């Protein structure tokens, strides 16, 4: 008995020893929750609309935490602040000067001490590759901790005058403990500090580089000793909201994210409307109208959405099967009075169905046949009820007969396509037999 208890205790201890380390998660388990570069343009922090996006957890529309780089909410599938992958660099609108980090007066050129390795200035000059540079709080303090690259035993004296090129640019480890630049330093984009007194090669901190479009290493133009700057850094106030609303609409790509969230200001909507009225090119009208449609959809304003889509389809362009399909679906939720519209716009969508492919094609074509059939069935049912119970006239009988024929034809089309594409035929067959009054017509 004592041996059995001992065995049981031993098994428990072994099982615990095996399972506990497996269950415990490390910090790497949360990498997905705290992305290093959550912004659509590859930055660590940015402003998306009215929100500031950082690697910390963001909130969805209901206030639930989601990773900052999630483009749509996990729970509600609604677009988040970083939804659009096309957003450009936002402009810094905070005060310039005064609150910004100020570099201390540059020290006189002295022989560098080997202890802290000085790095190239992360922000020498604005580059031409970034047309809209963001002026951000200088994140240099991240790099203030001395990197133990150069051993203190063999200090190398730097020349007092700035050389035209960095001292060492080779990505391979140098033989001598000379400070070197990293293999791919990208062009920094923030403000330029005063010219340095003792330029030496330094390695930039990775956080502030515009990494996505600057592959070749840019030579450090105006390096600054980092250590003294870091010691005199002041915290920079976060960018404040713009004091005056920008209601221009020249750059549609810039306002598209706001439109998707239904957050276009009234002035912006009026600006876009004005451009639609005065624009001559249909393609430009098409783009402008789509921005307004997206804005109405983002706001959840179905009435306005319907008005805008109807105007788009009637006056601007009806060759987009997606829009025709969506409009027909919206009309199908209404009563019999909108059923003829469902048939009309379903037909237009079917005219351009070749723009779809694969499963999208089969599902949408099936849905369009279904919409047409159900709309015709709705009209036929109402016509039969009017004829049978209200006005027993020849005209109403003819109308009922006409829509019965339409329903029969549409249902037969739907049924044939459903059979051909291997989709559900139950509803199509039921309506077909109901309209034909003859099962043989539909099953033949």
């Amino acid at each position, binding site marked *: 008995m004592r041996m059995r208890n001992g065995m049981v205790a031993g098994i428990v201890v072994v099982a615990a020893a095996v399972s506990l380390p497996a269950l415990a998660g490390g910090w790497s388990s949360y990498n997905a929750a705290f992305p290093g570069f959550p912004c659509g343009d590859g930055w660590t922090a940015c402003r998306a609309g009215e929100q500031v996006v950082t690697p910390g957890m963001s909130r969805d529309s209901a206030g639930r935490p989601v990773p900052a780089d999630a483009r749509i909410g996990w729970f509600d599938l609604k677009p988040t602040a970083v939804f659009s992958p096309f957003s450009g660099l936002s402009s810094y609108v905070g005060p310039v000067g005064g609150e910004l980090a100020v570099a201390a007066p540059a020290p006189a050129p002295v022989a560098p001490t080997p202890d802290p390795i000085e790095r190239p200035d992360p922000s020498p000059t604005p580059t031409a590759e970034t047309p809209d540079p963001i002026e951000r709080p200088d994140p240099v303090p991240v790099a203030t901790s001395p990197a133990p690259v150069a051993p203190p035993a063999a200090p190398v004296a730097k020349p007092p005058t700035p050389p035209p090129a960095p001292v060492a640019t080779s990505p391979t480890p140098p033989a001598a403990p000379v400070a070197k630049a990293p293999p791919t330093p990208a062009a920094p984009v923030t403000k330029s500090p005063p010219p340095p007194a003792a330029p030496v090669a330094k390695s930039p901190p990775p956080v502030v580089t515009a990494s996505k479009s600057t592959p070749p290493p840019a030579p450090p133009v105006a390096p600054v000793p980092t250590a003294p700057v870091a010691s005199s850094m002041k915290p920079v106030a976060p960018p404040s909201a713009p004091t005056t609303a920008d209601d221009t609409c020249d750059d549609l790509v810039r306002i598209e994210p706001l439109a998707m969230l239904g957050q276009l200001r009234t002035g912006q909507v009026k600006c876009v409307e004005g451009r639609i009225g005065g624009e001559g090119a249909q393609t430009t009208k098409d783009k402008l109208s789509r921005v307004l449609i997206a804005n109405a959809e983002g706001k959840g304003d179905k009435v306005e959405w319907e008005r805008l889509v109807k105007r788009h389809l009637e006056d601007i362009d009806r060759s987009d099967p997606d829009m025709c399909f969506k409009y027909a679906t919206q009309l199908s939720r209404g009563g019999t009075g909108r059923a003829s519209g469902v048939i009309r716009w379903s037909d237009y969508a079917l005219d351009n169905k070749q723009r779809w492919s694969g499963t999208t094609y089969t599902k949408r074509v099936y849905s369009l046949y279904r919409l047409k059939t159900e709309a015709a069935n709705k009209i036929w049912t109402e016509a039969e009820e009017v004829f049978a119970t209200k006005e027993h006239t020849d005209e109403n009988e003819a109308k009922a007969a006409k829509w019965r024929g339409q329903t029969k034809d549409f249902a037969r089309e739907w049924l044939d396509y459903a059979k051909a594409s291997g989709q559900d035929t139950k*509803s199509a067959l039921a309506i077909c037999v109901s309209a034909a*009054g003859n099962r043989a017509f539909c099953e033949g």
Partner: protein
Amino acid sequence: MMLVMFAGVSVAQAKPKSPDEGVPVKVIVKDAASAPVPTAVVRHPLEQDRHRVNSVDGSWETNVLYMPDGTELRFTPGQTIELEISAPGYVTQVFQYQIKKRRNVVELKLLKIENDVEQIEEPMITFGRDLPREPVEE
């Protein structure tokens, strides 16, 4: 005198129907809530016409059907007939019925056509984008 009159009446009542007339069959069409379906129609599979039911009580009654080839189908006891009942918005029903000598009343219930539970997946309307022209090969 009275006896003669009563005898005459009783003889008239006892007179059997002619077998050529056919036995009347009545079909009453109702929905799931037992309300008459005013838009229902009844049809024999070999017939071309559709017979509307009475819009008030949903009934239809006849003792003979006229086929497309000119023949008449008179209902006789023991005969089995097949009829299709349909109405817009309802699932069509086909039923067979063996005719009795009398009281041939058939009540049928039509079920509504159920829409698919699956909702239509709507596409997303995209923004307008200019596409670069394809290079022309010389």
